[in-house]
C-alpha cells in the first residue's frame, strides 16, 4: 500500500517532466495493423517508427533542398489532397521542368507492399526514395551535398539526434526517417473500410453494394485484398505509345515475358488520384472502365484474365460501370487526405 501511495505521488512528477522535455524526447509510435489489412511487409523491428523519426521523415518529405534546384521536394509531385499523387499531371515535371515518363503513384499503406515503382525497380521501402531523389529528370539530388546540408541545419540536427541518438547524420538515417514517415502513412478509414469492419459510417448504398459485387467478380483477381492490389505485374491491354515504348517490368527483369507489364496499383483513394495508368493516359474512372470494356489492345503478354473465353476485356453495361464507379468512390479516406499529421510543418 505504501509503495502504491509513493508511486501515486511520483506520477504527476513524471508527467510534468516529460511535457517540458517533449521537444527532445523520442517516443515510440504504435504501429497498428487495421483488422482488414493483409500482413505488414516492412520490418519495423529494424527501424521502429518513433515520434521524432516520423517528424524528421516528414520534414525531409517537404524539403525542396534535397533537389538540385532547391524547389522540387517529394511533396511537389506527391500532394496530400490527391492522396499524395500529382493532380492533373499525366507525368510530372521535375527540376528545370524536365519531364519523365511515368505517372506519380500514391503514397499510402506502403508498408504493406513488397515492391515499388511501376516497374518494381526496388523491393525495399528504405531504398525507394533514392530513385526519384537521384533521377536527373525528377529531383536530381546529390547525396554528397545533402548530408552536409542537413548537418549544417540546427532543426535537422535536433531531430536526427532525437530520432537516432548517438548516430551520425548519414544517408542511412535519412532514408530510415523517410521510411518511418511512410510506414505511418496509413489510409484505412474510408467508407469501405468502415463497411468491412462493421463500424459506424459504413453503410453502403444499394448501388455501391452492387458495384462492390461487380468489383469482386471482375476486378478483384488483380486488385485483390482490401488494399486492392496483389502486387503483381500485368499487361492490362494498354495500346503502346510508340514515342515512349515503355516496356515496364521488362526493364527490370530483362525477361521477354515481362514486356509491357506494370504493377497493379492499389485503388484506395482512386477517386482522388486521376489521371490513371502508368502514363496517366485516362482522365476519369469512366474512361478506365471503358478501356476494360472496349479498349483492350491484344499483345503477346496481355494478361490472360483479360482474354477469357474468346472475349477481350471485361464486358460491362452502362449501369454496371456506374455502380462500379460508385463503389470506387467509397474507397476515399477523407481523414487520410486532411490529417495535418501528414502535412507540411514549419
Amino acid at each position: 500500500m505504501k509503495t502504491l501511495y509513493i508511486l501515486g505521488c511520483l506520477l504527476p512528477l513524471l508527467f510534468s517532466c516529460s511535457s517540458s522535455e517533449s521537444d527532445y524526447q523520442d517516443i515510440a509510435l504504435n504501429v497498428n495493423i487495421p483488422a482488414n489489412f493483409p500482413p505488414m511487409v516492412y520490418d519495423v523491428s529494424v527501424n521502429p517508427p518513433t515520434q521524432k523519426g516520423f517528424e524528421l521523415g516528414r520534414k525531409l518529405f517537404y524539403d525542396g533542398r534535397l533537389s538540385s534546384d532547391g524547389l522540387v521536394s517529394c511533396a511537389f509531385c506527391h500532394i496530400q489532397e490527391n492522396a499524395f499523387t500529382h493532380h492533373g499531371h499525366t507525368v510530372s515535371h521535375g527540376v528545370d521542368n524536365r519531364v519523365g515518363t511515368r505517372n506519380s503513384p500514391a503514397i499510402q499503406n506502403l508498408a504493406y507492399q513488397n515492391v515499388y515503382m511501376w516497374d518494381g525497380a526496388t523491393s525495399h521501402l528504405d531504398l525507394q526514395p533514392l530513385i526519384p531523389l537521384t533521377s536527373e529528370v525528377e529531383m536530381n539530388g546529390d547525396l554528397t551535398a545533402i548530408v552536409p546540408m542537413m548537418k549544417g541545419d540546427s532543426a535537422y540536427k535536433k531531430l536526427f539526434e532525437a530520432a537516432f541518438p548517438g548516430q551520425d547524420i548519414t544517408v542511412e538515417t535519412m532514408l530510415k526517417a523517410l521510411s518511418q514517415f511512410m510506414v505511418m502513412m496509413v489510409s484505412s478509414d474510408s467508407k469501405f473500410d468502415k463497411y468491412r469492419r462493421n463500424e459506424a459510417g459504413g453503410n453502403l448504398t444499394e448501388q455501391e453494394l452492387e458495384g462492390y459485387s461487380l468489383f469482386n467478380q471482375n476486378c478483384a483477381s488483380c486488385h485483390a485484398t482490401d488494399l486492392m492490389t496483389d502486387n503483381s505485374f500485368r499487361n492490362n491491354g494498354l495500346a503502346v505509345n510508340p514515342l515512349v515504348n515503355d516496356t515496364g517490368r521488362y526493364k527490370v527483369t530483362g525477361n521477354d515475358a515481362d514486356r509491357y507489364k506494370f504493377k497493379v496499383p492499389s485503388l484506395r483513394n482512386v477517386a482522388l488520384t486521376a489521371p490513371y495508368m502508368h502514363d496517366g493516359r485516362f482522365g476519369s474512372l469512366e474512361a478506365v472502365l471503358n478501356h476494360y470494356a472496349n479498349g483492350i489492345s491484344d499483345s503477346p503478354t496481355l494478361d490472360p484474365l483479360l482474354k477469357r473465353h474468346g472475349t477481350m476485356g471485361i464486358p460491362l453495361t452502362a449501369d454496371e460501370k456506374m455502380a462500379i464507379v460508385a463503389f470506387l468512390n467509397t474507397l476515399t479516406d477523407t481523414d487520410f487526405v486532411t490529417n495535418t499529421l501528414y502535412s507540411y510543418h514549419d
Partner: protein
Amino acid sequence: MNIKHTLTVLVMALLTLTGCNNDDDAVKDTSGTGYLDVEFDNAFAGNDLILGAQPNTTSQNEVLNISLVKYIVSNIVLTKADGSTFTYPKSQSYFLVNEANAESQMLHLTNVPAGDYTKITFGIGVDKQQFEQGADGQGDFLAVAQAEDMLWSWSAGYKFLAFEGTFTSPTVTADTPFMVHTGQIGSNYNYAEVTLNNPTPALVRTSIKPVIHVVTDVSKFIDGTNKISLSENNAMGMGAMIMGGELLPLITANLNGAFKVDHVHND
C-alpha cells in the same frame, strides 16, 4: 685474445642480439590489434594499367584503350593458418576502388586482431544480404557510390564493376566505345566472392602494419575463363554496351580469376 677484438665481437654480438630481439619481440607479441592495408593494383595481363593511353590486346585480338576501371570491394575476411577467421565489421567494409584515384586503391583496415593471416577473402559488389536490408548498415556508402557514378538511379542499386573505354578489332576497325557495368539485374545478383592466398603471411601486430598487395588483371574481366567478345556485342556499331543480360554472370564468374596477391610487406 686481443681485448679490442673481443670487445668488438662482444659489441657486435650485443648489437645483433638487441636488433634481433626487437624484431623477434615484435613478431612474437600476438596480443592486441593493429592495422592492415590492402592495395588494389590494376594491371592488364602482366603490364601496369595506364588509363587512356596504352593499347591492350586480348586473346581475341581486340585492342582496348581503357578509360575507366571502378569496382566495389566489400565484406573482407582474413584467415589464419589454423583456419580461424576475422570478419571485418560489415558496415565499415565497403570500399570503392577507382583506377583514376590513387588514394582509393589503398584500403586501410583498423583494429585488426594481431595474427598471421594466410588468406584474404573479399566480395566484388554489395552483397545480397545488405541489399535486402534496405538502408540499415549502409552509412554514407550510397553517397560515395553516387559521387563515383556507381549508383543506378532507376533501381536504387549499385554498379558493382564499371569497365569502360574504346576498342578496335579485325572486324571493328574504327575506335568504338565499350562499357561493362555489372550489378543486380533481373534475377541475376552478380556478386562475386574471391579468396586469395597470401604468398607469405601478413603479420598484423601492434607495431607491424602489413600491406597485402593485390594485383587485379583487368583483362580477365572479359578475357578470363569466359571469353566475351566486344565485337560481337557491338549493336549497330554504336558500341559494346554490356549492362545486363546473360553476359553479366559470365563476367562475374571471371572475377574469381582476375585477382591475386602479388606479395605482402610486413614492416
